[in-house]
């Protein structure tokens, strides 16, 4: 009789926990690595974003200089092209960094899913091992029992033994099938983990490459910022060199050619700029705001809009980051307020309904100049002031008073009395007169007598001007050069106090003294007469200022700015002359053209230089 075969034990997955553990280690390691990549990618975004805020804004070559600055313009265009390329590269780097971050997150999710599957499988393995061990134990017990039977006596026991063997075999096979399934899943997990590792490695390389690009980009940007600053300085230099020497379009035409476009100057704007420089009704809200500023600060304001430029030195003093915020060394303004030191504050108007558009901060710290007929006007800072409530955008009205937002006229008298204040003479520049401020009424004129000028004293530059007038081919200088009162004799002004005297042309002062002098309209005497009549015939109280403007350190003014605001006794507005400019020009009988005494370059002097200056007479 053949004995039933002994049963083999069920297979158990003893090694599976280790394998799973190894898988876990293999999976966890890249997760840590991906975390680092995520940080690197985020850093790349941060770096480029920060660099982006410092990217140079497009440079704008100053208008009117393009033809003369062709080479500079080419460089500006090239720099702008590079800036555009860098901006595109920056976008690419940021996009790549974002892609890496997303991919990194996807890999992290894949690994988390894999780990979840590993954990589930480990539970399955534990369960399987328990079942397999139980089967093994039962098989061992089965095999340990007597398995030799006497037949037929023990036929029933043999059959039962074999039945048990078959059942155990079935259970063993079942457990083995479970193990096969686990093996398959394990293999699948290993394969997927390998793929995730590969993706992880690729991502790591891409992240490093992108960081390298970002770093390279940052370096290029810094170089471009530096170049941009150099170009700004070159622009400023070019502006200074061109604007400081007045162009002479009439001379160009006289030579037989075409008169070139004038350079940008204060009160002389080129195409595309505000041409409305007159005191039209349309400009009144603007003028009113500027006038109010003048009144509040007890100064005069040149209400002509213009453009101010950073000096080359000021551009060089900027940090690269500051320079990068500038597209041009130029900033527009709506008026210039004169300061006691002879410098100016540029005034920018802000419409009531408009959002504030401040000038770039770098302009506020000074280093600015405006140019007028070749003369530099130093500007110490920029102030933004609110325009009057009636917007400057309002169309011109048929009623000349409509939209007039000027402040109500006020009685300027102190304790009911008129007054006159002369500005302190400028001892640093030949003791030239600086300003006359007055509040005049009938009573004041009745009690304060003026005086005519004398042979002595004479204001600075007087003798030079007489000599220069002769050089211009004019005859007796008495008819061409005057010793000008700031406050006229008839308005109680002194003819011997140098605080009140400045060298001027006869044409600027009064009607011509000789038929050879074509004269100018208006001249100072025209305005003085109007003020005198307003006071003596209409009983007005008149706030009156006369300010000579000088070019640099010259002692002969190039213009007089006169403001007269009157008020009748009933409080209504009277005479109203706002910042009337009288240019200090003299006619040349020899050359048949005008020359500004405060601006001429006396070509008799070697080298040719502005005259007179300092203590010259």
């Amino acid at each position: 009789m053949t004995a039933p075969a002994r049963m083999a034990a069920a297979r158990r997955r003893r090694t599976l926990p280790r394998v799973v553990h190894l898988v876990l280690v293999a999976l966890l390691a890249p997760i840590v690595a991906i975390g680092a990549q995520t940080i690197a990618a985020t850093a790349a975004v941060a770096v480029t974003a920060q660099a982006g805020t410092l990217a140079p804004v497009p440079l704008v070559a100053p208008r009117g200089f393009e033809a003369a600055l062709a080479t500079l313009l080419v460089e500006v265009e090239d720099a702008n092209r590079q800036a555009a390329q860098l901006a595109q590269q920056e976008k690419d780097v940021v996009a790549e960094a974002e892609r890496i971050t997303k991919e990194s997150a996807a890999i992290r999710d894949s690994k988390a899913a894999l780990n979840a599957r590993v954990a589930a499988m480990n539970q399955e393995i534990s369960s399987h091992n328990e079942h397999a061990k139980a089967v093994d134990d039962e098989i061992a017990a089965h095999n340990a029992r007597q398995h030799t039977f006497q037949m037929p006596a023990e036929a029933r026991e043999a059959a039962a033994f074999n039945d048990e063997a078959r059942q155990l075999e079935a259970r063993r096979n079942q457990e083995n099938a479970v193990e096969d399934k686990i093996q398959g899943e394990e293999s699948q997990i290993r394969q997927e983990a390998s793929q995730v590792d590969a993706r992880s490695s690729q991502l790591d390389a891409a992240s490093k490459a992108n960081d390298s690009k970002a770093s390279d980009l940052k370096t290029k940007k810094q170089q471009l910022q530096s170049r941009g600053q150099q170009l700004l300085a070159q622009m400023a230099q070019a502006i200074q060199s061109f604007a400081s020497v007045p162009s002479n379009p009439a001379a160009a035409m006289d030579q037989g050619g075409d008169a070139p476009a004038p350079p940008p100057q204060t009160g002389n704007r080129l195409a595309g700029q505000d041409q409305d420089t007159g005191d039209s009704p349309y400009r009144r809200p603007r003028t009113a705001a500027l006038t109010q500023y003048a009144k509040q600060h007890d100064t005069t304001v040149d209400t002509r809009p213009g453009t101010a430029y950073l000096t080359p030195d000021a551009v060089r003093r900027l940090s690269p980051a500051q320079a990068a915020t500038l597209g041009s060394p130029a900033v527009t303004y709506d008026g210039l307020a004169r300061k006691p030191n002879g410098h100016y504050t540029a005034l920018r108007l802000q419409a009531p309904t408009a959002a504030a558009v401040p000038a770039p901060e770098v302009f506020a710290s000074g280093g600015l100049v405006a140019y007028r007929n070749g003369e530099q006007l130093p500007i110490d800072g920029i102030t933004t002031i609110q325009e009057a409530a009636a917007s400057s955008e309002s169309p011109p009205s048929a009623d000349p008073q409509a939209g007039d937002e000027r402040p109500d006229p006020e009685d300027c008298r102190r304790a009911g009395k008129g007054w006159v204040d002369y500005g302190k003479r400028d001892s640093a520049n030949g003791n030239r007169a600086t300003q006359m401020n007055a509040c005049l009424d009938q009573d004041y004129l009745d009690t304060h007598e003026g005086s005519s000028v004398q042979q002595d004293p004479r204001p600075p530059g007087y003798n030079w001007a007489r000599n220069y007038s002769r050089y211009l081919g004019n005859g007796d200088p008495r008819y061409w050069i005057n010793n000008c009162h700031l406050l006229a004799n008839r308005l109680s002004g002194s003819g011997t106090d140098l605080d009140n005297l400045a060298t001027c042309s006869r044409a600027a002062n009064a009607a011509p003294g000789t038929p050879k002098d074509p004269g100018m309209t208006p001249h100072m005497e025209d305005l003085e007469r109007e003020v005198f009549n307003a006071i003596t015939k209409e009983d007005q109280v008149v706030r009156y200022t006369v300010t000579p403007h000088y070019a640099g350190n010259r002692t002969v003014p190039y213009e007089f700015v006169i403001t007269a605001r009157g008020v009748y006794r009933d409080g209504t507005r009277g005479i109203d002359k706002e910042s009337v400019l009288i240019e200090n020009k003299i006619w040349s009988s020899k050359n048949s053209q005008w020359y500004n005494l405060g601006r001429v370059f006396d070509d008799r002097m070697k080298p040719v230089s502005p005259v007179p200056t300092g203590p010259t007479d």
Partner: protein
Amino acid sequence: MVAGPQSDRPHTALNVAPSDCAIAAGPTTQSVFGQGWKAFLSATYQDAGGTGAYTVNQTFGVFPDTDTAGTAFQRLTDGLSTCPSATVANQSGRSSKWAYTARPAAENALVWAAAQEGAAGWACVHQARVKGATLVQVAVCQEGDGTSTASKITDELAGKVTG
């Protein structure tokens, strides 16, 4: 406008590149008027503010006879036709580039414009007319189109030329 410089003889040719643009760039110079004129006057006027916003030139050149005047006019016509643009340097070393556009020529009359490159609409409109033995030229330089102004001035001037 106020009176500016005047000249009683044409100036020498301008410093121009290319050099064969001397006529287009300097239409009232010797390049056009030569030496054979009998009387010459160039008067320039500018805006009263002296800003250079407007500059006007009026030039008369009187020749011994109509043929010589016609030759000068023809020289001007030919010079303009061969020069689309030029760079002109003035005495202070500044240079400016100009593009020249001639309008269709009428008999004894010529109209052209010189537009300064990069100067945002700045142009000098020229008119030249030959009347008898006199060549009259008017130029109006300003931002924008000065054609009508130049025409009026030219009509006025040419009307005063006799013979």
